[in-house]
Every structure is written in structure tokens, then in C-alpha cells.
């Protein structure tokens, strides 16, 4: 198996583990001190424990949260994944002051991960369509024309 194929498989395993809240597997896929270059990453602890806290936060907002990889490819030590996230706001989004209201979300993110020689993720860059999600839960007016 090429390193790229191995890294892609690791990202797929990691997304499944986040869905299943299997944090032993998450910790095996991501370095403890990995660097998350993601808007909002400064709101959670550094490293993997912050990413786990963010996933737990999402589960408390959307108890039926599911993520699904729509597209994935890689080159060298990088993997690009396009992920769709769906769920129901039955827990409220505390950091945005949004109460639980039963509204459905369907949003996406793109992540670039950098993998070490052993495949473990050392750094990520991600952008998530938070504006879309905030519109869906009624916390942000939709742009004109939508």
C-alpha cells in the first residue's frame, strides 16, 4: 500500500471513530500535540484533547450528528477530505447562544491533513461552512437571494 493510500485510510478510520465517539482510535490516528489550523481552534484546548472536546460539543448540540466523507484524495504527506455533517439541534449551541430548537443542519467542511512517516496526523487545516449552519438553526439571516 502506498503511503497516500494508507493516509487516506487513516482519515476514513478517524471520521468513523469521531462518529462512534471511539476516542482510543482517535488518539491512535492523531498526534497528541497535533496543530489544528481551524477557525475557532483557539476556543478549545490545544492538541487532540481539544479536537475531542469539539466533537463532544457537537454531539451535545446535535445528538444524532453524523459525518460522511464525500470526497477524499491525497498527495505526498497530505490528504484532502470533503466531509458532510448532518444533525438536529436538540441540544442548543452554547458558544453561539442558540437554544435547542429541533432544526436540522446539513453543512460541510474541507480538511487538509499532514501525516507523519507513520501515517499519524500531525497538523490539519480546515474550513467549515459555519455561516450555512448558523442560517439553518436560525441564528443568522440568510444572504440576499437565498
Amino acid at each position, binding site marked *: 500500500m502506498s503511503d497516500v493510500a494508507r493516509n487516506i485510510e487513516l482519515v476514513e478510520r478517524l471520521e468513523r471513530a469521531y462518529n462512534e465517539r471511539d476516542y482510543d482510535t482517535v488518539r491512535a490516528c492523531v498526534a497528541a500535540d497535533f496543530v489544528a489550523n481551524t477557525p475557532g481552534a483557539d476556543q478549545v484546548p490545544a492538541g487532540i484533547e481539544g479536537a475531542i472536546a469539539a466533537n463532544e460539543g457537537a454531539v451535545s448540540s446535535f445528538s444524532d450528528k453524523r459525518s460522511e466523507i464525500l470526497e477524499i484524495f491525497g*498527495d505526498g504527506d497530505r490528504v484532502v477530505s470533503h466531509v458532510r455533517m448532518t444533525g438536529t439541534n436538540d441540544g442548543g449551541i452554547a458558544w453561539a*447562544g442558540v437554544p435547542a430548537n429541533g432544526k436540522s443542519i446539513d453543512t460541510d467542511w474541507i480538511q487538509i491533513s499532514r501525516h507523519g512517516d507513520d501515517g499519524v496526523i500531525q497538523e490539519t*487545516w480546515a474550513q467549515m461552512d459555519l455561516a450555512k449552519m448558523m442560517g439553518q438553526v436560525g*441564528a443568522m439571516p440568510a444572504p440576499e437571494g437565498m
Partner: protein
Amino acid sequence: MTTPEHNAATVRELIQRVLNEGDIGFAEKTLSESYVERSPMPGGTADKAGAIAMFTMMREQTPDMRIQVGEVIASGNKVAVRSTMTGTDTMGFMPGMPPTGKSFAMGAIDVFTFDDAGMNTEHYGVYDIMGTMGQLGLLPAPPSA
């Protein structure tokens, strides 16, 4: 037959010529007639004409816009780009929004698809709209809990 390296070079040239320099004609040449925009602007169409209208609108809304490419990852017929767009909000961040006069830096990740001839057939992207609106002071205050 195109290559990932050639596709990556096309994306760099598209960003530089079309978005940084306003050479819309380069997009006319590079986008396939069957182009599909998966991230159309609000109210825009998802075809080649809609994408070109979006490029034109971006240049109009932020005349000093500049996209700095952080990295480009190409594999098969896909090219991913991580970038930061900087500019000054002199015309309204989006149509209908009041200009704030503030400068902003918006993170982005884009994915482009190419056909065998090296024509760009598809694009989607995710942009830090929330963070940018925060920089510009345009976010509605969260409802008091």
C-alpha cells in the same frame, strides 16, 4: 492528456490572473462549457456563466482583493488550494451589506476538478465567512441566553 502538475499550474494561474488581476478572459478560456459550480454565490447560477459572474462580482465588491495561496495539492483530476483572501471592505462584503471600510483576511479551501483535456469542469469551496464577518463587525449579536 493533462497531468496533476499541469492542473495545479492552471489553478494558480486562474487565481492570479482572474481574481488578483481581473483578467476574466482567462476564466472564459479555462472553464469547460459544461462547468458546474457546487458553491454558487447567493442567487447565482451553478454554470460557467454564473462562475464568471461571481468572479466579476468579487472584483467589484473588493477592488483591492488579493488571494495569497498557502498550498496546492494535486492528485488525479483534483486540485485543492488553501488560501487567504485579503482586502478592504469599501463596497460591502456582500451585495446588500453596508461597507465598513475595514480590512479583512478570509481563510479558504477550494477543490477544482479537471477533465482529460485540462479544462476546469467543477469547483467547490468553503470560506471563513463567519470569521470574516466577525472581523468586519457584521455578525448579529447572539441572542441573550
